[in-house]
């Protein structure tokens, strides 16, 4: 056949032949960028040791992924940056005084047990960082609940987190809670920095506000009722603990949240109720991690019942 004019054989593949410039790596990078404000606040507020915790945990996560894949003769996927995201989320959930080896164990657990054993990126059914946090919580309860580290610009006499403090009846001012002038885990304290992060992700179209808004709204309604219609109590509940952090960075996790729009709403409502129930009735003041963990397990079922009706099967509406 006369193929002279082409000179060399061109590629052949199924359409479409154009691809967008989006990459998984870029999505992950945007999540990392979104976590930088809270990381900086953590370092400023709790001291540079916090920054060390974040960097070492993220590095451990990457190393764990690299070593596992090397040993298993799998393609090396650290370039997609997802291990850094997992490591950062985990470390930002650590108390500032945590011995560095604790999050390092957590990072290895998250990457190897939760992520890689199920097939790596996109295949895990629960969020690796949250699973690792819960694992550490159970294994090192004392260390994980020690918030006595001195913070800059903050009176370190009380070692209780704001949530525990609410129970003890010694709340902080709204302003302190909002900018993050309170004890707590490295990444959760500053609502302001969290909002900057989530704003960035929404602006970059990394996430939709669907899950965080539904989650926080459901949680608010629950706590408003559970708190006896006390507005003050509700604000304190909202501004303290991991609720905002969880709504922005953990509930939204691509892999372990539903892909259907309806499913995302159902999932977020479930998380809001679950968090409220745990905070109100369980002995632990924190509920976000466990609520999301439970939520993750329900994702396949939620998706099954929220498949949208396709175009043209919704009745013939006239405009």
């Amino acid at each position, binding site marked *: 056949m006369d193929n002279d004019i*082409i000179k060399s054989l061109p590629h052949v593949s199924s359409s479409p032949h154009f*691809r967008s410039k989006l990459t998984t790596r870029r999505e992950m990078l945007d999540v990392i960028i979104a976590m930088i404000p809270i990381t900086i606040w953590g370092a400023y507020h709790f001291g540079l040791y916090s920054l060390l915790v974040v960097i070492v945990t993220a590095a451990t996560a990457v190393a764990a992924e690299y070593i596992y894949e090397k040993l298993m003769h799998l393609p090396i996927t650290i370039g997609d940056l997802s291990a850094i995201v997992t490591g950062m989320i985990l470390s930002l959930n650590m108390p500032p005084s945590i011995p560095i080896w604790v999050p390092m164990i957590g990072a290895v657990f998250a990457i190897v047990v939760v992520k890689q054993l199920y097939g790596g990126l996109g295949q895990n059914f629960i969020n690796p960082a949250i699973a690792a946090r819960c694992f550490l919580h159970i294994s090192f309860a004392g260390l994980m609940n020690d918030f006595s580290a001195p913070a800059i610009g903050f009176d370190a006499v009380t070692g209780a987190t704001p949530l525990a403090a609410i129970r003890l009846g010694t709340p902080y001012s709204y302003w302190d809670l909002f900018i993050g002038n309170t004890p707590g885990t490295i990444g959760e304290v500053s609502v302001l920095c969290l909002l900057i992060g989530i704003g960035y992700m929404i602006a970059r179209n990394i996430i939709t506000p669907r899950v965080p808004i539904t989650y926080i709204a459901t949680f608010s309604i629950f706590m408003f009722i559970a708190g006896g219609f006390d507005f003050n109590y509700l604000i304190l509940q909202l501004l303290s603990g991991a609720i905002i952090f969880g709504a922005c960075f953990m509930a939204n996790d691509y892999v372990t949240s539903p892909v259907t729009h309806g499913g995302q709403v159902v999932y977020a409502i479930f998380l809001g109720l679950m968090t409220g129930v745990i905070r109100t009735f369980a002995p632990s003041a924190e509920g976000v991690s466990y609520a999301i963990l439970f939520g993750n397990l329900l994702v396949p079922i939620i998706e099954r019942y929220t498949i949208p009706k396709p175009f043209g099967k919704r009745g013939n509406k006239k405009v």
Partner: protein
Amino acid sequence: MGLATFRGGVHTYEGKNLSEHCEIRPLEFDGEYVFPMSQGIGAPSKPIVAKGDYVLAGQKIAEPGGFVSAVVNSSVSGTVKAVEPRLTTMGTKTMSVVIESDGKYETVEGIGKERDYTILSKEEIRNIIKEAGIVGMGGAGFPTHVKLAPKNDEAIEYVIANGSECEPMLTNDHRLMLEEPERIIGGVKICLQLFPNAKGIIAIENNKMDAVERINELIKDEPRIQVTTMRTKYPEGGERQLIFAVTGRHINSSMLPADAGCVVDNVATLAAIYDAVAKSTPIMEKAITITGDAMKNPANVRIRLGVSYGRIAEALGGFKEPPAKIICGGPMMGMALWNTDVPVCKNTSALCAFLTDEVTIDPGTHCVRCGRCVDACPIFLVPPLMAKAAERRDTAKFEELNGMECIECGTCSYICPAKRPLTQFFKQMRRDVMTARRAKQAAEAAKKAEAEKKA
């Protein structure tokens, strides 16, 4: 008034600037012309000429092979060299009539004769369109005479001329609307004659405002025809998206546009209808775009059907460098070619040659379920779950997830950051399901026949 549009879709790189200012220029070729018997949806046509026959330009060389099938006419005069399987743009060999042009373009008597279509009956018009071998020239190649014969002519409320040209790179419809809008408007008028209650709408994306203005100017005095400007978005020209954007009505895979009171035809098809009915000229030529960064001289050309893409590319100066990818059609739904020695058919509208193959740039990752495909799917499907079913070859689950509603537009693959071949998965699954359905139907028919035999 807001721009007409639909939910979902993507805004791709357009790349139309390469050729949108190039006037359509006629190119003539001597030598071999190939006419495949299958040029779009429907049963293959049956050749009615044999090797050695002398044919004239415009002469019928094949009869429809079924109800949904089209006539094929020769575009040149010359001798039939062979009737044999030839490579087509689909990548397979199809029975074709091969004609060696004598370069004289002698036409069948009567071709080009002006005809007053307003005195023709509906039957006559439909028959002329059928004999002219007109099929949808936008891509699918559905026989137009079938499309124009719905159950009830009175129920058709819209005749939509599809001038959206939402595929990136392509400019042949744009140029046609600018240079020969009278033919398109004439085609719409002929269709309006078939459907007494219909309104003619010429739908154009807002990246072609010059065409909108040009046509608006010409239809000032046509009370039954109007232009609808649509937001530039892919796949705006998809039949279901287009009907929704223009009329707000929904159709699904098991409905025809006529079920929503619509008839949709590409602008090039309407121009062909005008030629056939008003000028007694069957479909012999087509305006196509030859473009892409690998082309020395991107252009819009008018060529006679049956000439090979390679010869057109060569006549335009060839490639700058060997292209990494050559596509027949647009980059979103076109077919990649490994050999340019394939004929231009009625339903193919472009050749795009690229120096880089975007598909191979990034090997991608696993699906991270970011949901961008879910947001972009114009049919509101859930590609990540469908892809999982496809990986397991689970056709039952695929159907449960409404996979058969997929229009294979390529939006999901385009947007996917993990670079997953989603559309490819779905095409394969849809074929599997169709094959299984056909096998089931055949088995049932055989069973029924056997039962009848016994009885």
